[in-house]
């Protein structure tokens, strides 16, 4: 197939893609993230339960599907439940504003167990409770004393019922009893296979402060993120024993809400679990019309139920002496307890007079009596329908975004992206003229195809995703710039337009691939390791980079190739390639020590700032709650503090936000330790009642200490992996020695950015870190462009010193480097000026990263490479020879005349040496060994532009090496002779 024909085919293909993309954009709605449409995001950490000692991938997957079912029942449209890392689950609920209710319904663990009650009671409880209807008098009296001592009146009917069942008045006493039990290490039937820890107040009555926790250290961090004093009493309940509570009930069997529960220590040997039941439904008790929950059993559950109820009935029968009335039989019958999340929901009797052989599970069973209203019964039925979660879920982060702020953020992000796009196009048109027009068409095609992909995949578009989109516009423009600069060079070198275009693409493509692979690798690492918000950014960046390769390389090549013989491309000036072009003639390597000094001073200042001011880590890392609220009535910070204090929320920092673009001056930002969803709601209610909250004017983010630590860990992992992968790639594609300067330049960039953040006091969030990590990958673009040219010039300049090669390479690519950085900076500046607060955070990190990256690739990475390579024997010899010819100095740039002199000298020497070789070979065949060519060590692995020149250069270098060795041998012989 001819080249022209293939160009036409590519053009048609891209045209087709653009048309299809246009249809997709018009017909499909873009899926917006919570930050752009408002809603609630919850992040849960999975913790082991039951017999498991760790959270498995299957547990997380099962939990995700259960949560999805629960959310469907909430009626939320387009919810997203996804795994985050190895043990976290993120739940996005667009449009949901009641964080408390959502968190309760989504994350309730619903660990349901059924216990044969009496045999599992232990200690003094057993003395009372294990003989229903006929408790031990002494034990009962002891228990009543205990209740009185705890300040609870055992004579009150509701308390009396708990006393009669053997309950303890406080958790502390029950926990002490539980702690005395022998651990059952290999407990296979337990609800929890690991010991659990409880923290009690040191002073009597030893109120329960925290627990149960699987790790003792977790006791000292409250669920709200506050550090708790370590002066309490820790009680360890061993595996095989479980602590459960039971709320008192009235005479009708209804739970008395708000009253203190009674506590039991039980042998953890449940007869059935939530897995053994099916079809739970809310229903009504015949006759009383009380709400109940009915359910059926699985096959194994049915026989287990029959067995346990039979055992209970037989025990009741054994206790009955002689015939008993129905009331007496009921009073002496044993209990079957339904325990949900360590709380006794109901404890019905198994009446031996009615069910002497237990209850046949085929008819199912029911939970009754414990419900105050129909909603409660319905909720339990729903929870049981969906199933218990296989793991405990701990809420570690919660973000609530108001719809108004979301849509404003979308507006700002779109505006920034459009303006950034327009600025890049304007730059391309002004600087590259006709080529700029081609690049602009390609960028247009890129934008349409990329946006269609966002709708089609679909990618949830988030604010960080928009930042990624703007960055990929820069990436796409960069690819064009790299190629266009090549084409201009070829045109200036006198090539015809069509061959200049072909050569430009051929030579530019390896640079573009190297640079884009590094960006893709960084995006991939971020996607795998980063938190959910940053994932969107990484995914957008990755997809955008791939699409940009298609449009910026394949499409523009086809477009230019098909036009190469047209009138439009006859004039070199139409391409901006008229005249000689700007060629830098600056001694980059000679001046590098001064640039090193500048960097050194900046780093010292940064180091001092970091030591004295540290970094301002946001709540992503430090944990806490941040609320942004727009109030209807004018007020001040003190009044807001008072309102929050009254609601019991203390220790907060309150700041009035001036000129908020959405809500004006009456906006307050409140930052405190982590608040639970209920507390956030209380804060919202307090502010609402005191000052009134503007419509959609409430935003909150809560991050727990665990999540903060995870974000920090994942950022560190992403950084280390990015460094390793990028260095590995550079070492493989270039030369291992090229990887070290890249690494040093990256350290330089990271530290300078850290210094800038410390000096300015700007907040460091997970988004900042992600933006910066991406920029690291992207800023290596510059380094790769310079190194790529050095690699290319090494074989072209076989007699030049390495510093001369680098100077030449830098002078050739500096314009290109500056143009690529400038085009990216245009987009980033647009984000900084027009984007909202979140995008500005991203943009600031990008700005610092790009500026530092461009600087370090030119003034740090290349000089380090030069200094290191110049120590190689081959380059030492080159320097010595140049210095001999140049009167003791090595010029900044390789002089053509001097190089020619060196070449002529080589050839003369080589001719003489060849004659000598022939003579020696004739005298002793095989005596001349092939010597290693030291210059090869500097050649790299890159493609060679001029094969003939290279071959000649290599042969010449080999001859020179042989001559040098012969001279050395002759000198050695002479020296040896003198010595003798």
């Amino acid at each position, binding site marked *: 197939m001819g080249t022209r024909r293939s160009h036409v085919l590519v053009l048609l293909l891209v045209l087709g893609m653009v048309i299809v993309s246009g249809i997709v954009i018009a017909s499909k709605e873009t899926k917006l993230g919570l930050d752009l449409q408002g809603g609630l995001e919850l992040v849960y950490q999975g913790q082991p339960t039951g017999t498991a000692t760790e959270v498995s991938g299957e547990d997380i997957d099962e939990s995700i599907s259960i949560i999805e079912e629960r959310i469907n029942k909430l009626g939320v449209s387009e919810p997203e439940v996804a795994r985050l890392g190895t043990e976290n689950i993120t739940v996005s609920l667009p449009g949901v504003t009641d964080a408390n209710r959502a968190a309760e319904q989504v994350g309730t663990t619903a660990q349901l167990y059924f216990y044969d009650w009496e045999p599992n009671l232990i200690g003094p409880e057993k003395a009372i409770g294990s003989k229903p209807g006929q408790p031990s008098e002494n034990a009962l009296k002891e228990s009543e004393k205990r209740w009185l001592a705890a300040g609870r009146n055992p004579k009150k009917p509701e308390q009396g019922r708990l006393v009669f069942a053997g309950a303890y008045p406080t958790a502390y006493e029950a926990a002490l009893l539980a702690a005395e039990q022998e651990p059952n290490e290999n407990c296979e039937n337990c609800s929890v296979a690991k010991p659990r820890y409880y923290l009690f107040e040191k002073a009597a009555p030893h109120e329960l402060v925290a627990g149960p926790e699987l790790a003792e250290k977790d006791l000292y961090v409250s669920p709200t993120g506050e550090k708790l004093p370590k002066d309490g009493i820790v009680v360890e309940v061993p595996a095989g024993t479980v602590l459960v509570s039971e709320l008192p009930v009235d005479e009708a069997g209804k739970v008395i809400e708000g009253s203190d529960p009674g506590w039991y220590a039980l042998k953890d040997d449940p007869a059935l679990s939530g897995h053994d039941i099916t079809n739970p439904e809310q229903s009504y008790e015949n006759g009383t019309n009380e709400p109940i929950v009915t359910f059926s059993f699985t096959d194994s559950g049915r026989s287990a139920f029959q067995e346990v109820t039979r055992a209970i009935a037989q025990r009741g029968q054994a206790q009955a002496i002689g015939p008993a009335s129905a009331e007496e039989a009921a009073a002496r019958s044993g209990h079957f307890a339904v325990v949900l999340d360590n709380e006794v929901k109901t404890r019905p009797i198994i009446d031996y007079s009615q069910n002497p052989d237990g209850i046949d599970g085929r008819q199912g069973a029911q939970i009754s009596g414990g419900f105050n209203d129909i909603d409660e019964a319905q909720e339990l039925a729903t929870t049981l329908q969906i199933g218990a979660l296989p793991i405990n879920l701990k809420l570690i982060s919660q973000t609530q975004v108001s719809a108004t702020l979301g849509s404003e953020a979308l507006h700002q992000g779109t505006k920034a992206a459009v303006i950034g796009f327009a600025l890049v196009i304007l730059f391309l048109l002004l600087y590259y003229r006709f080529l700029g027009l081609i690049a602009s068409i390609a960028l247009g095609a890129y934008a349409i195809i990329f946006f269609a992909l966002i709708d089609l995949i679909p990618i949830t578009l988030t604010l960080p995703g928009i930042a990624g989109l703007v960055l990929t516009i820069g990436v796409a423009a960069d690819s064009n710039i790299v190629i266009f600069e090549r084409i201009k060079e070829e045109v200036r070198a006198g090539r015809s337009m069509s061959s200049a275009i072909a050569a430009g693409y051929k030579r530019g493509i390896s640079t573009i691939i190297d640079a884009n692979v590094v960006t893709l690798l960084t995006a991939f690492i971020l996607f795998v390791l980063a938190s959910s918000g940053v994932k969107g950014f990484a995914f957008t960046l990755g997809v955008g980079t791939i699409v940009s390769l298609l449009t910026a390389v394949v499409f523009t090549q086809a477009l230019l190739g098909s036009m190469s013989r047209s009138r439009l491309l006859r004039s070199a000036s139409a391409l901006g390639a008229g005249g000689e072009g700007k060629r830098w003639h600056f001694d980059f390597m000679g001046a*590098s*020590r001064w640039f*090193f*000094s500048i*960097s*050194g*001073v900046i*780093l*010292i200042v*940064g*180091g*001092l700032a*970091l*030591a*004295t001011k*540290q*970094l301002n880590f946001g709540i992503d890392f430090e944990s806490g709650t941040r609320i942004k609220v727009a109030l209807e009535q004018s007020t001040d910070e003190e009044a807001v503090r008072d309102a929050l204090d009254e609601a019991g929320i203390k220790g907060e920092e309150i700041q009035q936000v001036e000129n908020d673009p959405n809500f004006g001056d009456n906006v307050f930002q409140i930052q405190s330790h982590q608040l639970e969803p209920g507390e956030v709601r209380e804060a919202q209610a307090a502010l609402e009642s005191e000052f009134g909250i503007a419509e959609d004017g409430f935003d909150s983010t809560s991050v727990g200490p665990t999540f903060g630590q995870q974000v920090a860990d994942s950022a560190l992992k992403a950084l280390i992996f990015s460094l390793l992968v990028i260095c590995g790639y550079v070492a493989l594609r270039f030369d291992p020695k090229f990887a*070290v300067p890249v690494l*040093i330049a990256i*350290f*330089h960039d990271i*530290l300078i950015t*850290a*210094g800038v953040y410390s000096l300015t006091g700007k907040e460091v969030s997970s988004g900042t870190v992600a933006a910066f990590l991406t920029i690291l990958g992207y800023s290596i673009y510059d380094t790769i462009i310079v190194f790529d040219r050095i690699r290319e010039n090494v074989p072209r300049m076989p007699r030049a010193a390495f510093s001369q090669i680098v100077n030449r390479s830098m002078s050739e690519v500096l314009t290109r480097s500056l143009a690529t950085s400038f085009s990216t900076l245009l987009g980033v500046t647009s984000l900084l000026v027009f984007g909202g607060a979140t995008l500005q955070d991203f943009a600031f990190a990008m700005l610092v990263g790009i500026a530092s990256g461009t600087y370090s690739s030119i003034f740090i990475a290349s*000089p*380090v490479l030069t*200094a*290191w390579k110049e*120590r190689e024997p081959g380059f030492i010899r080159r320097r010595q020879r140049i210095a001999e010819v140049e009167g003791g100095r090595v010029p900044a740039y390789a002089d053509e005349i001097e190089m020619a002199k060196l070449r002529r000298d080589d050839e003369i020497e080589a001719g003489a040496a060849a004659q000598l070789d022939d003579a020696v070979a004739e005298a002793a065949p095989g005596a001349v060994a092939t010597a290693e060519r030291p210059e090869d060590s500097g050649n790299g692995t890159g493609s060679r532009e001029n094969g003939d020149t290279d071959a000649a250069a290599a042969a010449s270098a080999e001859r020179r090496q042989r001559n040098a060795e012969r001279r050395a041998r002759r000198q050695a012989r002479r020296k040896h002779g003198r010595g003798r």
Partner: protein
Amino acid sequence: MALLVFFMMGIAFWHFTVFLPDRFWQGIVGAFIGAVLGSIVFGMIVQEASGKDLGDTDLSTALIAIPGTAIGLAIVYFIGARSEERVG
């Protein structure tokens, strides 16, 4: 955070080694390793000895790194100079 400060100061002072004769073991890269290791190891020893947590930083944290960097650089320089002399 103290480790980051040590690292930063080590790299900062490494930049000025371009004014010294290139006799470091492995040249400028060896000097880099020496400066960074010197500042971190010496800084950590002093920080531990003074009973400070590695998370705590103040002006002295940055200053501690300076002698550490100098020691690291001196060691690498000494090794480089000796191996040069040995080669002749």
